[in-house]
């Protein structure tokens, strides 16, 4: 099989005018903004708990996690994923189409991208007119679990 024929589907969304994508297989569903219950003392990127038809999902603000400065607080959509059996909803500004992209357009993340974002990114797709940043949900899961471990240790100390 040649490299050109490898195709993957991505569920895309927009945050602070940038286009991001998550492998469509990892996305459980996309919903509109739902009422949230704030979790006091939780990390800043945990925006709250959402009732997803009886399941409780933890809302994570990707902009906060990526340390993207944004004046507007206009996350209105939830991208619901299951990370290592934890149900999370990524809060994003706007939902894009599901794009089928070819492997040949894939690039690694250029070094100039800020580390705070780069650590969660798999790579970049060059699509006509714009660039699509592919998010590595594994890395996000790893990061939040590490932070939780750290916090547990701190609270025990």
């Amino acid at each position: 099989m040649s490299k050109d024929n490898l195709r993957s589907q991505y569920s895309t969304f927009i945050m602070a005018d940038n286009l991001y994508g998550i492998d469509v297989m990892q996305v459980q569903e996309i919903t509109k903004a739902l009422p949230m219950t704030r979790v006091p003392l939780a990390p800043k990127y945990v925006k709250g708990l959402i009732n997803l038809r009886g399941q409780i999902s933890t809302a994570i603000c990707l902009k906060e996690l990526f340390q993207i400065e944004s004046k507007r607080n206009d996350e209105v959509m939830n991208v619901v994923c299951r990370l290592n059996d934890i149900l999370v909803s990524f809060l994003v500004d706007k939902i894009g189409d599901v794009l089928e992209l070819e492997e040949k357009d894939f690039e690694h993340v250029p070094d100039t991208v800020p580390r705070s974002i780069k650590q969660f990114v798999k790579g970049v797709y060059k699509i006509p007119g714009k660039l699509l940043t592919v998010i590595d949900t594994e890395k996000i899961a790893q990061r939040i679990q590490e932070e939780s471990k750290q916090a547990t240790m701190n609270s025990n100390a």
Partner: protein
Amino acid sequence: MSNSNDTAIQEFISEGNEIFQRVFDSLQALEKGSKDPELLSSLYRDMHTLKGTAQLFGFQNIAKLAHVLEASLDPIRKNNLSISPRLHECCFASLYLFGKLLTNVQNTKSDHGFTDEILRMTTLLIDAATHQFEGEITIENESFTGSERKIDFEKLKPTAEVELKSEPRKLKTVPEANVINLKNDLLSAASVAPVIAAESAPVQEVLSLNAPEATIRVQVGLLDNLMNIIGELVLVRNQVLQFKNKHEDAELLGLSKNLDVVTTQLQTEVMKTRMQPISNVVSKFQRVVRDLAKELNKQIDLTLEGAETELDKTILEAIKDPMTHLVRNSCDHGIETPAQRKSAGKPENGHLLIRAFHEGGYVIVEISDDGKGLDPKKLIAKAIEKNLISTEQSLSMQDKEVYNLIFMPGFSTAQNVTSVSGRGVGMDVVKTNIEKIGGTIDLNSTLGKGMTVGIKIPLTLAIVPALLIKTNGENYAIPQVKLVELVRVEIDNHQSSIEYLHGKPMLRLRGDLVALIDLRELTNKNFSQSKYEDTNIVILNAGGEILGLIVDEISDTADIVVKPLSAFLKYLTLFSGATILGDGTVAIILDVIGMAMAANINTQRTKEIDPSLSLADGAVKKSFDAQEFLLIDVGTNVTHAIPLCLVQRLEEFSLKQLEFSGKQKVVRYRDQLLPILDLCELLNYSKPENSKEQPKEVESIVVVQRSGKFFGIKVTEILDIITADCDIDDTVCDRVGILGNIVHDQTVIVIVDILSLLELKQHGTNGLKKNQTSQVQSTQLSSKNNIERIKSMSVDMKSKKVRVLYAEDVAFFRKHVMKVLNGAGFEVTVFENGAKALAALDKSYDNQFNLILSDIEMPEMDGLEFAKQVRKRNKFNDIPMIALTTRFKQSDIDAGVKAGFTSYMEKLDPEKLLKQVAEIMNLNLEDIRRAEA
């Protein structure tokens, strides 16, 4: 054929374990002398089943052992004999061998090994069996060795069909004694099973032998899923019900009602599938105790009560280890060796009781022993030695606090470390494990008499009753089990307010200082508030420590479905989970222990565990004379009070609930009619002039009980509860129904004699029945006569000196009765419980007391025990004893009379009391009769 089939083997093991347990139980019952022939038959059947299935799976060793055991029991069963002790012991031994073999199967999927033991055991069994049948020795011996040999060979593989078929044939050639023939018939039937086993049909037959009831095994995971889905259905149902309230559509109304009913049914039924009798856990203790007793050279009987009480399977699993620990503890540390027990004057057999019962949505499991109990002195010494507490701390500790020391990490009182216990870990783990499932643990002990550990556990983990509160606009839920009470502090109300100690808010709650923590502060580190005004406080019990949580708003109570927080938020120890409320919003569940820890409150320093105990405990802590009063407003400008010990409940009824029976206002209350009496009218106060204001939407009702009947007392407002330790001053008593006044916080409070008022009212209505024309006025007159009568009686009694010993724990009654008796010229000495009274009685000189009055329900030693103890001492046999109590059922009276009380009467009825005393003391009976006429 089946070794590859893991699930099948798993089935075999779980069935084997079931059989194992059942056989053990039967053997135990037989040992205790049960003559039930069904026991032996079931034992026999079980062995037979085990043999069949073992052969099916190719476990020849198990099959062999089962066969020999079966064969040994057969003649006994057939001839209806009782099992000999020797054979019995062999049966136990072989059962243990079964256990080992089963474990082996579980671990290695084969039952190889233990060949020698099996051989020895079979020989022993046959020996024991033949020994019991001396008359048939030869035949039996032959047959048994014969059969044993047959099963012993390696060729007895289930796959070797020919060999198996040959077995019954060979057996049939054994010389014919009745016993043997019958057995052979059965044997042949059994051994056919493995032959056809390849077609798997007989498996059913074998199983059906074992399971007479129609049951199927289901994976627990499946039930868990089902439970979760039901949980969600319940939430959807709640949402539909809320939606329905907003829309007045008749069809929707009907449909949602149906949905409601069906969902509730479904929920209860599915809950039932997860419920298992507690016997699944506790019956195993028979074996544990038996083994331990052997190992420790003690004699211990275990009694199980309420083993059929059902609990959620998850909880059952969770309490298994803690309970095993407690049982082992009792056996090892609690119950003494027979020699020690004998010298302590106890029966040589120690007794362990495990009791399970339902109480208010919880299951309570009590493990009590009659061993030596906890020694507070030893505990303190140990705790000081281990630096767990300081010497000063130890001085101020209550016994209960001392007992709870054993729950501290690193504490063990056993002198020697034994293989059973004593390594200093355990009780703290027991406590944490019980608390983890939302339970509480409580400990009671009497030195030399034994101790009782009570575990209070919720029925199910999945659905918990909770209190919903709001803070910072967010909903939070607090499990009800942690809840003690709700307090509202209002700035205008000078009765109680928040005080500050080094900047930290504190609340005085009925004489106790309660540390307050603010939920806003806990959930927001930058938050600080220096002054509180009107405040809602939730009083919580954090592992025994009482704390007050300041919240913005108290919303409601609800049954919530607990869902865990995401794994990466688990480190937030303030929260124990989340739940979805009826309106679909998510509420976070607060973890009371976690909050206490966040506020640096030490939850290890346990005071009292059961919130229900905290009141009783508090009462003891307070001074001897402290009394609690319910402050009420009756529409006059003077605050009135009712002794709290008389108050059953405080209720609010809406005007809609009020109905009339004749002219009497009533409310339907707990399946009976509750008459509503206006205190203002009872006391004959005139209604204030400005009472033209609209009647209130809800009426505040104080429910009191008299002679087993409830009465609702309507008051204008319920104000507060205070603790006052001053005397009731009865110099000013301007009307009937007033006991006197007390001064509290520089204000005069009028104490209402509610029971007399009720009696007056009742007499009044009786009078009305007899004589339609009589007026309320006349009742009042007659009551005045009553008072006069009492006074005249008193004068008569003064002629003979009556010296009364009176035991009563409630200060109010103590004072009241004392006043009545003193008024009649008696000498009264009071004690706050039976133990103290008894001690005083023992020290008294001859004829110091010539009458004993006692309450029934008292701490330390209750009235019944007190009476028994008094009657035990022959020299006090002549002193009449009167029980003064509010318990007035016939069974209570019988119990009282049995314990040695001369008579039994109701508290707070001065006239009757004096009459009774006079009667018993032979005082001027003539006068009283005259007075009655």
